[in-house]
């Protein structure tokens, strides 16, 4: 096995991002779509931490710190929106939520 460098971490990050994107595209449950969004955010975090480590620069980790905070806030608001939506429509299925469709 060769030494693990930045490209290996970036490839893992890219693959995880693709998995998350696939989940957003394919799955039809709002909650699972939301979890896939979290996966994509995590993939971005991994790329930033790896870049920060291999460039010996702390700024990438600061950014990840802020991303984690913002993601927590986003999850709180998003799940409140999902609960409100469920109260009104009794569904978490995106194909039932087409009111804005032309």
């Amino acid at each position, binding site marked *: *096995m060769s*030494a*693990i*460098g930045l490209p*290996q*971490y970036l*490839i*893992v990050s*890219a*693959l*995880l*991002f*693709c*998995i*998350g994107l*696939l989940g957003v*595209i*394919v799955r*039809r*449950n709002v*909650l*699972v779509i*939301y*979890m*896939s969004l*979290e*996966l994509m955010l*995590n993939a971005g*975090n*991994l790329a930033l*931490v790896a870049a*920060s*480590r*291999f*460039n010996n*620069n*702390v700024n990438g*980790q*600061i950014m*990840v*710190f*802020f991303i*984690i*905070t*913002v*993601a*927590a*806030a986003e*999850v*709180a*608001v998003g*799940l*409140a929106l*999902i*609960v*409100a939506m*469920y*109260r009104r429509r009794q569904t*978490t*299925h995106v194909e039932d939520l087409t009111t804005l469709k032309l």
Partner: protein
Amino acid sequence: MQAAAFYIIAVLVLLCGGLVIANPVSRNPVTSAMFLVLTILSMAGLFVLLDAFFLAAVQVLVYAGAVIVLFLFVIMLLDLKEEERRRVNWGAAGLGVLAVGVIGAVMIRTIKFARPPGRISAVGTVGSAEALGQALFTHYALPFELVSLLLVVAMIGAILLSRKDLR
């Protein structure tokens, strides 16, 4: 040793990530949430391998501790029996796989052809809580305060949105 750990954890991350979005056994969102926990814990392992110890701790505390609990709370709150009966739209799924495959191929080729970074020193002082705190409370003090404001706004928003008489 480190390489072996990296490969094991990377496979674990990708496997659990895949099981979040497409579980052949169960389509229950609770299963997805559980595999999301595993993904996030393995991700914390990768952070440790990258000497980002503080972020690994934050990842476990915030994601596995708070975000997933919130997810599970909402899943339990809403009754999601209906989801399992829905059929999968295989045509749309195939097109999605194709599109994401193309995007992934573009990203991986880009990484392959990128200029490799120069060799860096092996000492990992970057990830310590001390270095992070130094930067956070000096150079990034204003963003830090703004994030606290954002958290307050998000909290008020979540409370407002989940009121029963929302108009």
